[in-house]
């Protein structure tokens, strides 16, 4: 049977896209659909014949106080991490773009500043565990300079665990901003700065009225991507505090992991994953809209 020419023409792009589409369906669409379906059934996987329970799993998760602790901690962890990444990224990018620093010094700084980005998350976790250990170098330095009387258990303290993990995440993530913003800074025409100088603009005016508006598209993309990545952060938290002590550094990712691999509550893990997916979808829509807007400009 021959297809009408019009339909054939319409189908042609899908034919060319089919290899990528098949891979996407197998690796993305199928698992996501399965997880969404799992969230509407009773104890899936463990129970060979799970029954449909509607929104019961959502009710269980949304009435679990540990879920809200994890959500609150995730909000803090993500919010502070993204803000600090942004500030540190801009600061270091400006430093590396400065005309007041020599080429050799710049090269040295670039190597030093980008180092955290080169380590894997497991290495970063081990490194910081050693640094923040009660017998570690951080406590040692604070004690010899008389800032501390006794050692602090930074990662094991209920009050400090979340802050400590957030600091580790900030350290590991700022170079991505720095490199991206440095590329953006180098693309800003020098004429803009020269013209503004003639008009009497000082460094602060130039920063807020030229640099930031010129970097806006990159900044929005970076922030959106960072929000999604940081929400999903697992390895660093698991390997440093394990979400403890007493859920003090529990985030949505560690909560999901414990539900699945410790409690074998796959339905509840799937339900929490769907909630995280919804948050990420909102961010993805924002990102896509922003990209579309920039494209139109």
């Amino acid at each position: 049977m021959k297809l009408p020419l019009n339909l054939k023409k319409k189908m042609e792009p899908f034919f060319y896209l089919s290899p990528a589409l098949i891979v996407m369906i197998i690796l993305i669409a199928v698992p996501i659909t399965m997880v969404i379906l799992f969230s509407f059934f009773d104890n899936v996987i463990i129970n060979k014949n799970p029954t449909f329970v509607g929104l019961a799993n959502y009710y269980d998760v949304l009435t679990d106080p540990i879920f809200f602790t994890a959500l609150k901690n995730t909000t803090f962890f993500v919010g502070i991490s993204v803000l600090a990444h942004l500030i540190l990224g801009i600061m270091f990018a400006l430093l590396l773009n400065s005309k007041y620093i020599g080429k050799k010094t710049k090269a040295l700084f670039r190597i030093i500043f980008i180092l955290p980005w080169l380590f894997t998350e497991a290495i970063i976790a081990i490194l910081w565990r050693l640094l923040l250990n009660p017998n570690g170098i951080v406590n040692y330095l604070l004690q010899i300079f008389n800032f501390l009387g006794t050692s602090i258990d930074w990662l094991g303290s209920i009050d400090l665990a979340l802050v400590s993990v957030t600091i580790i995440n900030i350290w590991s993530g700022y170079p991505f901003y720095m490199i991206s913003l440095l590329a953006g800074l180098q693309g800003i025409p020098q004429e803009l700065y020269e013209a503004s100088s003639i008009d009497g603009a000082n460094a602060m005016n130039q920063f807020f009225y030229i640099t930031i508006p010129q970097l806006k598209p990159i900044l929005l993309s970076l922030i959106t991507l960072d929000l999604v990545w940081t929400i999903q952060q697992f390895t660093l938290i698991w390997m440093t505090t394990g979400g403890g002590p007493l859920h003090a550094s529990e985030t949505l990712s560690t909560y999901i992991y414990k539900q699945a691999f410790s409690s074998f509550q796959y339905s509840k893990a799937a339900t929490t994953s769907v909630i995280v997916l919804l948050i990420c979808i909102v961010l993805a829509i924002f990102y896509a809209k922003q990209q579309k807007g920039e494209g139109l400009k």
Partner: protein
Amino acid sequence: MLGKRRFLVLLLMSIVIFGISVISLSEEITLEFQQWWEPELPEGVLREICDEFTAKTGINVELISNPYADTKVQIAAGAATGMMPDVVGLDGSWVYDFAKQGAIANLSELMVSSGYDDSQLSLQVQVEGNTYMIAVVNFAYPMYVNKDILKNAGIVEFPTTWSEFKSVAQKVTDPTSNIYAYALPLSSALPNGIQNQFMSWLWASGGKMLEDGKPNLIGNEKLIQGIELMKWLFEEELVTPGTYTMREPDMVEEFVNGRVAFMISSLAHLTLIKEGAPNMDVAITSIPKMDGYTGKSGICVANWGIGIASNSKHKEEAWRFIEYLMSPEVNAKLAVYANGFPGNTASEPDYSKKDKLFVDAYEIYQESYAINEFIGLPRSEDLMRIFLENFVLYLEGEFDSAETMLEEIQKEWLRIFGD
């Protein structure tokens, strides 16, 4: 008459079909064996054992080796997707959940069908009367002592009772030199510190946390006293700092670095300790008993267990492999290399070339009875985590008594037992 082209097509098809059938007929069987044992054994030992099996049977064994924690996650993922490797290394605390899930095969049936005599097996983990895991090697958890720290504090005798331990702990602890009496890993990421380093005290004094297979925490006098002992150690600041994020390997590292006088740890760590601190004067002793207890002590054991995946297409071959690993000679060899005790009671491991500390530990093991009440329980890791979190709350002053804490734990444990 066949056309030339049609004839060629038929000929080609025949060759392909013949080729496929020859390949399938001559296909070798390869068993996938996932475990965490290979990284813990001297290099090449497990590979050598598997190669000997291949030489005898023609069945290949592909080793999938990862550290303990990763192995659990990967096996759980395999169980969820029905893609478990044929043979899996198991910890007794995982068995109930995998068996209930139908992810691991009923070994009782395989033993019956192959006519295997299971009387020589030291431990079979059963769920509803059927065996799902066989212990290949058993590891005892005795108490390690840093004798150098004791000597510096003028102590010659090892403590044998809780009150003696308290007295020694106070004498050896020196925070200015970063030396503490005891290390207790209470990381919620891997909550087995409750099993290995906390319950060991209870079991050594003949105590139990279960009665007729159900939680028996409320009013459990020995358990309450054990909790009080730990709380006292914390209040007196005799426990190594960093306890809430400490895992077992961190505890061993603290010991190797000479910062802990006593720790309860697996014999599997003996080589690591000897290599890490070759000049340290280390001893292995029994865990002190509760004052007044004169009965036999229980000693915590962990196992390298083994099971077969339900989804395995080669269950008979997998069972032959398990039989081979459990044969007295092979089992003895594994036990010697692993610093453990054989899962086959008929094995006669040659410990004559072993470290004296190992021989001491073997004597303690023989004088005690092996115990681990978490083996075969539902959601064991969750049970440990619930205990751990409530225990941390108690240490932080959130419960007014150990009894109240145990009431809360019992309530949460019963929910899991009732699921």
